[in-house]
């Protein structure tokens, strides 16, 4: 006999169907500004998220997979937003969201794993850098305490590095006894690796008390806000989403994914309350997908995609793009949206402006191996 409830648990409880590997990682700092990085693992299809409906190549290449501009939200004379992104559209209308299109990391091949490695470590090629750029960013903040604090079962590569970050995800198991906790602490004390993880886990459990968190997108958005709004709490968070690799059946799958992400972002915004004014969220993926639909109702691995910037301080309501076009001869290697903006420049610029750091210095510290790109600034108030 299979119980529905136990199945839901098994499936990660992602009732809203956004495949959130509940990877939220937070870092404490002496600042009231917040920065949230959301990674879309699997190569999200930028062309069907922020749709270049006015480009004649779009309908031709996408065929039945093209988003109907009449159903989508018009963003300007060139672009429209996927119809599932209702809350995001509302933020755009209020000037709290913008998109940077035709953007890509320095990585130009089409392996998810290498692409994510470049996106997260900030190197110019895979496995060149050992640590994550977000960990280097944490190191640049004025620190509230020696131990930075974190949350999620495991720490994603973007946050790995010399600065200790913690991880937290809601658990359904009963808590250990005090005696067991004390003795475990004693056993781990002389072991650097275990001690660091253990003390971080203890700190995070304290912070999470009473949040009653679950793992659906709305709960995760709210939980992230709970951490980010604690006095002396973490000021940097990372969320991992999966399920963007739409080789087939893209229409339904992408809509479901986007609805989940839309719900998460709205819950985060609502949970932040007045602090939303000092919060910036950046959403990015390792690379985009082919400009043309493939033979199986989906798209294959491509190059440039779209990044999202949302928050109370964003100079939003616009799509930032040096649009390369989808015509013959305009595609990268004859198949992908060509990159015209650098994702690392965007990450450096937004991270710096959202945390009130010097953009050029941030670019040098975060992306030295990528040649310290000129940060993209002017996106925040």
């Amino acid at each position, binding site marked *: 006999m299979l119980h529905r409830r136990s199945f839901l648990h098994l499936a990660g409880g992602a009732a809203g169907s956004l495949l959130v590997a509940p990877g939220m990682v937070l870092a404490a700092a002496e600042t009231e500004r917040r920065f949230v990085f959301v990674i879309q693992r699997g190569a999200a299809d930028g062309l069907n998220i922020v749709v270049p409906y006015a480009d004649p190549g779009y309908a031709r290449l996408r065929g039945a*997979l093209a988003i109907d501009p009449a159903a989508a939200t018009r963003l300007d004379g060139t672009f429209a937003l996927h119809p599932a992104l209702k809350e995001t559209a509302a933020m755009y209308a209020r000037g709290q969201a913008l998109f940077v299109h035709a953007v890509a990391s320095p990585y130009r091949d089409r392996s998810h794993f290498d692409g994510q490695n470049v996106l997260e470590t900030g190197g110019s090629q895979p496995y060149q850098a050992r640590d994550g750029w977000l960990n280097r960013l944490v190191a640049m903040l004025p620190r509230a305490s020696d131990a930075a604090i974190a949350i999620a079962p*495991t720490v994603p590569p973007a946050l790995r590095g010399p600065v200790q970050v913690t*991880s937290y995800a809601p658990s359904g*198991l009963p808590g*250990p*006894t005090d005696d067991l906790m004390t003795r475990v602490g004693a056993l781990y004390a002389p*072991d650097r*690796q275990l001690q660091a993880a253990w003390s971080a886990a203890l700190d995070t459990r304290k912070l999470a008390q009473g949040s009653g968190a679950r793992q659906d997108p709305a709960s995760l958005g709210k939980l992230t806000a709970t951490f980010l709004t604690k006095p002396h709490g973490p000021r940097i968070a990372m969320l991992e989403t999966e399920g963007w690799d739409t*080789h087939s059946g893209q229409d339904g799958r992408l809509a479901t994914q986007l609805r989940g992400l839309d719900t998460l972002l709205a819950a985060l915004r609502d949970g932040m309350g007045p602090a939303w004014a000092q919060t910036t969220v950046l959403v990015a993926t390792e690379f985009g997908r082919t400009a043309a639909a493939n033979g*199986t109702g989906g798209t294959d691995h491509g190059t440039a995609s779209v990044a999202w910037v949302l928050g109370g301080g964003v100079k939003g309501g616009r799509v930032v793009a040096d649009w390369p076009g989808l015509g013959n001869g305009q595609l990268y290697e004859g198949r992908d949206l060509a990159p015209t903006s650098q994702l690392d420049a965007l990450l450096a610029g937004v991270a710096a402006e959202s945390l009130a750091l010097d953009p050029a210095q941030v670019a040098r510290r975060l992306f030295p191996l990528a040649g310290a790109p000129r940060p993209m600034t002017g996106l925040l108030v």
Partner: protein
Amino acid sequence: MVSEQPLSPAAIALNRFGLGATPDTASAAALADPHGWLIAQFDHFDVTPPAWAALADARALLSAYQEQQRALRQARAAAPPPAPVTAATTPLPAGPVMAATVPMAGKPARTPEQKQARRDLGEDIHALYRQGVQARAQSALETQAPFVERLVHFWSNHFCVSVDNLPVTALAASFERDAIRPHVLGRFEEMLLAVERHPAMLLYLNQNQSIGPNSPAALRARAKGGADRQRGLNENLAREIMELHTLGVRSGYSQADVTEFARALTGWTVGGINDDAPGDFAFHPQQHEPGTRTIVGKTYAQSGVDQARAVLVDLAHAPATASHVATKLARHFAGDVPPQALVDRLADAFARSRGDLPTVYRALVASPEPWEPRSLKAKTPWEWTISSLRALGVGDVGTLQVATITQQLGQPVWKPGSPAGWDDTAASWIAPDALMRRVEFAQRLAAPRAAQIDARQRAPQVLPGALSAATAEQIAHAESPASALALMLVSPDFLRR
């Protein structure tokens, strides 16, 4: 890392090569002759133990799934136009595995009977998945060849599928039982061919939908003016075979090689209801892209199913494949940063034996690097769960819900979420929340067993010549037998291998 008790060869054989020591006499052989105990297991491996043999037939279930999908399509096509249903207002079927089947605007709604039928099928499939996980755990608990069982888990992760949709969920256990287990002591080439022909892999990486753009089927569809039919090439399987299963990423092949290989693979699919073997591997010549292919500098003029087969055989024997496999094996047994000397030795054994896996395993056991007398690896949640149960003397998985346990610990079986499989480094598994959950779960496992097991005696049994003084001390002074037993399971000595 603190200085710890140097590990005895027996402890290394049992815990690093094997799945963890048990309190019974099976460990005695390992104590007497650790090397010999490992090699002798090649003669004791049971390919299909009773728990695996008893699994329901996934292909029958898949056929039922195909049949039902067809019936649903027909019923919906015949239905009168209903009230408009939009994706936003339709309640989702439970769980992300159904995400691909969200009804879109404009299609007829399902009747309550149809919805119930879909739910029933989904529950059957998930029950089968859970039964498969139980079988995997049961054979890991009762095996006389724990080193070989570990290698099954290794290869299953190397060639992984991920249960992200219903058909793959139905077939994941069959994939490990029928494509991995029979070949774990065979040749790499045979395992590769079995893996790439298995319906779970063909469905997981969309190969069943890939059709040659100039194949007879595509030409026919075009002649009929069926431009709206979405039929064509899908490169997913071809790419992951080269990147993950054989050559390894950045080993010299190009995007053009991937596309050519995808063309060669067209026609490889899963048999439908009208095929000879529904739900099994099938080759559909009418979907195969005609012509000669050039892949990594070599020309393949074969026709039909033999073309991609020839490519796979060449990939199995490519030097890059030997090096890729050797690196992963060395990382699994000798540390997150695998020693280059060991990698070279294993790659050499692989190449010289033409991919004979026992020859490679013998080279591994005969090498000094995996016998380094300090902990080299952090246990994954799966390894930790199985070794904990073995240490507690649990011989029968019984009602323990292993699928749920591994999910809670962060590593749901057969669901790595990506064709790269689970990462095999400590950085992925020694994380704050993951550690806390192990402590919670250790307490839950220990509580009902503490009356029968004295942790002060059990700890030196399962960590023979490997128990640190600090762990022995904390166990001896714990406030309760249950605390002591839980401490044994979460001690640094036991969290690593």
